[in-house]
């Protein structure tokens, strides 16, 4: 395995806000690597630095062995990007958008034509290739952008929230494309998302990022195993009593979260009756009890003490305050 991306102490500040805080990791060639975190965690900022759109405040990184600060054009030639926000020319046709891109990347005319045909077929847009993009649905536009990002045969493809705002069916479809692409073309894919289930299914490895810091980095399986078994969520009017009652050696972790208690343990199905009996004898009231296999959502909660949604709500408040400060 060779290293596709090497990041060392990368930091980016916006005035007094530290968007990316001293992160370091490597991404291997051919990997599908997920950057997972709430909105505003620093995912897009990281991607912007790696794709030379934004200068780091400090630290360094290489993409395909090329330094992102020393040789911007070298990096740009070897990467493809699908931005979070749409970036097509709506007045042009699908073909013309592709052709524009091919010319910008100086792909010779005959190869350009052949690749455009091939890629538009791959993303199933060949019947609509001469239609103006304005008439395309959100999913079609996304597919076109992915095809465009691949036109110059990049060895690394950045996808920033590629499924944001799409319906579940289109999202599934798109992920299948991405998985197939990675396999067939052997390219490294770095994607950001805040859909935990998507990251879980698709990525070989995941970095969980929060407040600009990498708080966990591993395969989805290892991350979930780190929870310590299955997850039992008990809702009760007296959650503190549950925490006290469940101090047993066969329970790996007990955490109170608002009016819920989250219990991690191996083989939860076998122990559930014991838990209920235990709580009954100590006369702790139970409102509801649920068991599930650990998800990345649980991993996020265990590392940050918050669910990703709460974290986003917090962040919005922060951003609002920040914007007010800047304005005044």
């Amino acid at each position: 395995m060779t290293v596709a991306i090497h990041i060392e102490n990368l930091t980016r500040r916006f005035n007094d806000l530290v968007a990316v805080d001293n992160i370091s990791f490597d991404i291997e060639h051919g990997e599908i690597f997920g950057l997972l975190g709430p909105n505003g965690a620093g995912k897009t900022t990281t991607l912007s630095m790696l794709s030379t759109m934004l200068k780091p405040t400090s630290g360094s990184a290489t993409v395909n062995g090329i330094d992102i600060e020393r040789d911007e054009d070298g990096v740009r030639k070897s990467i493809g990007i699908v931005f979070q926000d749409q970036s097509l020319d709506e007045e042009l046709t699908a073909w013309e958008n592709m052709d524009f891109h091919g010319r910008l990347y100086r792909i010779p005319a005959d190869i350009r034509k052949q690749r455009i045909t091939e890629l538009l077929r791959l993303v199933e847009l060949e019947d609509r290739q001469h239609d103006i993009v304005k008439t395309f649905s959100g999913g079609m536009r996304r597919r076109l952008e992915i095809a465009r990002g691949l036109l110059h045969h990049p060895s690394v493809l950045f996808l920033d929230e590629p499924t944001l705002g799409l319906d579940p069916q289109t999202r599934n479809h798109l992920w299948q494309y991405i998985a197939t692409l990675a396999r067939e073309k052997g390219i490294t894919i770095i994607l950001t998302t805040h859909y935990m289930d998507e990251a879980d299914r698709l990525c070989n490895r995941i970095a969980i990022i929060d407040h600009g810091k990498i708080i966990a980095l591993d395969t989805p399986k290892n991350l979930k195993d780190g929870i310590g078994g299955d997850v039992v969520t008990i809702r009760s009017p007296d959650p503190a009593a549950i925490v006290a009652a469940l101090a047993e050696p066969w329970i790996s972790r007990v955490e109170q979260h608002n009016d819920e208690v989250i219990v991690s343990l191996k083989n939860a199905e076998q122990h559930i009756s014991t838990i209920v009996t235990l709580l009954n004898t100590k006369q702790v009231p139970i409102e509801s009890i649920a068991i599930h296999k650990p998800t990345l959502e649980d991993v996020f909660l265990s590392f940050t003490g918050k669910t990703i949604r709460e974290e986003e709500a917090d962040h919005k408040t922060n951003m609002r305050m920040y914007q007010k400060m800047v304005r005044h």
Partner: protein
Amino acid sequence: MDIIYTIWLRNMKRYIRSKSRIIGSISMPLFFLLFLGFGLNSVVQLPGIGGNYIVFLIPGMVAMSVLFTSVFSGIQIIWDKQFGFLKETLVAPVSRLEIMLGQTLGGATTAVLQGFMILILSLFIGLHVSNPVGFLIALGFMIMIGISFTAFGIAIASRMEDMTGFQLIMNFVVFPIFGLSGALFPISSLPAWMGPVTLIDPLTYGVEGIRYGLTGVSQVNPLICFAVIGVFSIMMTVLGAFLFRKIKF
């Protein structure tokens, strides 16, 4: 060169498809020409300039058409910013200068085409082009006006985040440039104290240059016109390129 062509080509494709824009931006100078031209033709005396008012007005309306179309084409970069397309261009392994020059040439081409249409329509209301050299001179001045003001539009657009300031720029910068240029009346007919103001308006030299080409008469020496508008177009291109380089993603 191929990158400049690529950007230019995109501008041309968009131009040809925007039928309503073509007609919209042709209508204003055309109406000016018809209403003012025919309305004032018998009233207005132009001592020492010769010809009638319509013939005097035609070069001004050609210049107006080029001016407004080119500023507008330059400012269009803001839309590219808002619709995200600018990112796609900026992240490609090409220089900002090439992008800016492609955009300038694209905008100038559309502007000259718009001016050319006014020119053609003018043939039906009294314009006689007897001298092909004069016609080429007029075309040369149209091209220089087009380049100057597309670059000017790009310079402005590079510093603006959205279209909210657009109206302000149009009313307080572009319209005075047009009004003071001698497009509608001979600059000598203004009060004496306004004379210097018209002479610092770069468009004055463009209008006078086109007028020299089309009618053979002008109030400013055509060589001076050429020098001034030539230098101005270079200055604007340099300024536009400088500010465009500083655009952040």
